[in-house]
């Protein structure tokens, strides 16, 4: 709080084009840089997933998709989506844009570090993309990169691909650490006067706790990545057991592949919540704003975010029931996994109770928010199946798992991202996204993803294994499964193409969209109260905002309008910055 003024003199600085848009230290520009890069690389991953689906739906119809390239698509699709799209977009994109604006700060506390974080992230993306162009192509080890197969001949991309993948991950972790230090310190140090922790919007809470998780979980990926690079390049045996490969006894001996899995999932499970917690926060704010009601159970929502963050570090081995680890571990990890359902369920109940008898505006952000709830509930419930050891063992490595994690970790966060973009785009650009195109985008994406993933649950029950290039000749898979696979592929192609509508909308509306004004949704939080839209460098003009109330004063009894911004004083006929009278607060 005391540092809120530290950049007070920087808001009027004239800057040239390069310093303003390229080597920018402004959190809003960095947020856009992060978002554009993440979406661009996400499109690559989307195309890869459609190529995969072409092979599964119409096996052999496309000659350029051989087994090796199929595995490379699987690997790169997974890694890009989880790390380079979702993590980067939620923390680097939404986190960068919203934390200072929602807290009433002029910028992040370390603007230079923030800029560095983006450029290092871009370097990580470039290194990863370079693996498409090295001999042997990118890694085809599956996104979990389990040794020994990930670095041995026979797996695609074990020449340069896997090395570039690991180097890129290490670089990404450096970038994420620089970003995370900024987000956490800004939340702790740069809040406007009156912005107590419990007056923060839930979006900031979600991003804050997710940043802490990222800071503590990414070191596990760093350690496993560096140790695997040692195994690959220097011939050590951290993870590599004694092994005969292609008829040759290798020099490796005695390493523990399960140790890699423990390290990987010690990162990998919190990663689920690094993505989910910001989504939870965004959805909470979208639902409250567009239902014109205060969020139900704000304190419970905060405690649930913190509780889920803590629990996410003690569930990792539920990814490893079939790994050959000590079977007794399963009891512990199944128990913690089921416990984490409690705070998660609290959040779902609270969203539904916020909607209950609310003044629901079914605009595009709200559609995505409601779509998120149902998708997350479905994906979460199948998580309860898989969290039980005895149910997981037969379902492990089938399409049931693919369906589960795509619903909970793929579709849900992406719906939250879309909802968030439709919600905040008017602040970023000063113009509204086109409503009709937005509704088209929502309905095709929402129904389309259900058409993709619902049938996969059934295929999983049939026992159809994941990560197979072709499914001919397996007696337990009925021929009709192939029809279902063709149907899923068509749905995936339709959903994929529909994203072009979204991209067109993003570009077109930036210039031709309806002017938004400063607060088109009638929202209470500070980012909608900036003197300019889009906010200028320094965000707040000459004086910083003061916060007098929590973030959810919607439909307050006796108030003149159905929302009271956070910077409106409590007493009597208080006036906002625009001269608007807000009337008394009961």
């Amino acid at each position, binding site marked *: *709080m*005391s*540092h809120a003024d*530290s950049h007070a003199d920087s808001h009027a600085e004239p800057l040239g084009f390069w310093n303003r848009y390229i080597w920018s230290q402004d959190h809003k520009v960095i947020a856009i840089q992060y978002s554009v890069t993440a979406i661009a690389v996400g499109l690559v991953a989307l195309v890869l997933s459609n190529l995969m689906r072409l092979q599964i739906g119409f096996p052999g119809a496309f000659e350029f998709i051989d087994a090796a390239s199929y595995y490379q698509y699987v690997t790169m699709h997974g890694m890009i989506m989880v790390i380079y799209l979702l993590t980067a977009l939620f923390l680097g994109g939404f986190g960068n844009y919203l934390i200072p604006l929602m807290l009433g700060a002029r910028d992040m*506390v*370390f603007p230079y570090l923030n800029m560095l974080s983006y450029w290092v992230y871009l370097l990580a993306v470039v290194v990863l993309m370079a693996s498409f162009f090295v001999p042997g192509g990118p890694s085809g080890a599956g996104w979990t990169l389990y040794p020994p197969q990930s670095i041995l001949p026979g797996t695609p991309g074990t020449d340069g691909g896997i090395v570039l993948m690991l180097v890129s991950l290490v670089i990404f972790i450096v970038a994420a*650490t620089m970003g*995370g*230090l*900024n987000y*956490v*310190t800004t939340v*702790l*140090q*740069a809040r406007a*006067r*009156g912005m*107590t*922790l*419990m*007056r923060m919007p839930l979006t900031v809470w979600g991003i804050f706790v997710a940043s802490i998780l990222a*800071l*503590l*979980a990414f*070191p*596990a990926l*760093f*350690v496993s990545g*560096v*140790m695997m690079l*040692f195994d690959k390049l*220097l*011939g*050590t*045996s*951290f993870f590599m057991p004694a092994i005969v490969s292609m008829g040759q006894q290798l*020099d490796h*001996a*005695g*390493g*523990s592949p399960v*140790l890699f899995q*423990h*390290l990987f999932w*010690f990162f990998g499970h919190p990663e689920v919540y690094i993505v989910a917690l910001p989504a939870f926060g965004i959805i909470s704010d979208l639902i409250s704003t567009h239902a014109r009601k*205060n969020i139900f159970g*704000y*304190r419970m929502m*905060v*405690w649930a975010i*913190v509780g889920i963050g803590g629990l996410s570090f003690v569930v990792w081995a539920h990814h490893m029931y079939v790994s050959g680890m*000590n079977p007794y571990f399963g009891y512990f990890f199944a128990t913690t996994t089921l416990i984490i359902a409690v705070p998660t369920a609290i959040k779902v109940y609270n969203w539904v109770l916020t909607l209950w008898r609310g003044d629901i505006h079914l605009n595009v952000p709200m559609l995505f928010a409601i779509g998120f709830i149902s998708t997350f509930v479905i994906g979460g419930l199948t998580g309860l199946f898989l969290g039980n050891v005895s149910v997981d063992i037969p379902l492990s490595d089938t399409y049931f798992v693919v369906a589960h994690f795509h619903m909970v970790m793929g579709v849900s966060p992406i719906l939250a991202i879309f909802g968030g973009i439709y919600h905040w785009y008017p602040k970023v650009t000063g113009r509204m996204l086109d409503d009709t195109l937005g509704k088209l985008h929502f309905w095709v994406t929402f129904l389309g993803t259900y058409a993709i993933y619902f049938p996969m649950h059934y295929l999983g029950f049939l026992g159809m294994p994941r990560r197979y290039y072709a499914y001919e000749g397996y007696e337990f898979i009925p021929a009709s499964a192939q029809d279902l696979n063709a149907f899923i592929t068509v749905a995936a192609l339709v959903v994929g193409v529909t994203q072009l509508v979204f991209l067109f909308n993003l570009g077109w509306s930036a210039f031709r969209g309806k002017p938004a004004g400063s607060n088109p949704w009638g929202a209470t939080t500070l980012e909608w109260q900036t003197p300019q839209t889009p906010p200028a460098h320094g965000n707040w003009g000459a004086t910083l905002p*003061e*916060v*007098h*109330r*929590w973030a*959810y004063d919607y439909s307050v009894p006796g108030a003149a309008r159905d929302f009271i911004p956070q910077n409106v004083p*409590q007493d009597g006929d208080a006036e906002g910055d625009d001269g608007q009278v807000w009337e008394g*607060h009961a």
Partner: protein
Amino acid sequence: MSFLDAIAAKPWLPQAAPPPRAGTATAAATVGLRVFLGVISALFGLLTIALLVRSRLPDWQALVGVPGAPLVGLGALWLNTALLAASSVALQAASSAARREHLGAARLALALGGILALAFLGGQGAVWQQFMTSGHFVASNPATSFFYLLTGLHGLHLAGGLVALARATMHAWGEDTVPQLRAGASLCALYWHFLFAVWLLVFALLASPPETLATLADICGIG
């Protein structure tokens, strides 16, 4: 107000905005550094667990306490430990001299701390050299792999700190103001103390005989 008190507040009840924080607030850079130390703790904590897990597998040959072990005497490592401890003490002295506005003393102590830290890195390099001349390379045995990995990562962190220390020292010899010098010196001192503690952990792990590692692994539940 503790974090637990803070999150027990009921924000929907009307209340006047709290007054600005009394007294001197912690600088953002200090908070940022503390958070970063948390990240480094996670990193070395995970490496420790990895080492303990790996040490339970049959091909592990401890660096000490067995015939032919590469760490015959710990003298060189003790000398390096003393250098890093002295470097840490020098930076603490720089920090307190800066607080008492003894500019000259602060400058000298900063420079001395840097030189001692460089000497530590040189000493670690000499131990690497000694390992390699006696035929203990990175892939020779998992214990030596961990030796290179842990000392290397620790050294990299110290080298990163040296960049910050070099900047602080140059500013101190330039025309920097006292508050900036004070902040720089105290941040460097905090980071150095922490890396010294990390080094003690790394040293203890590397110099432990197999029985000690086995006991530690048992305590951690690694069978």
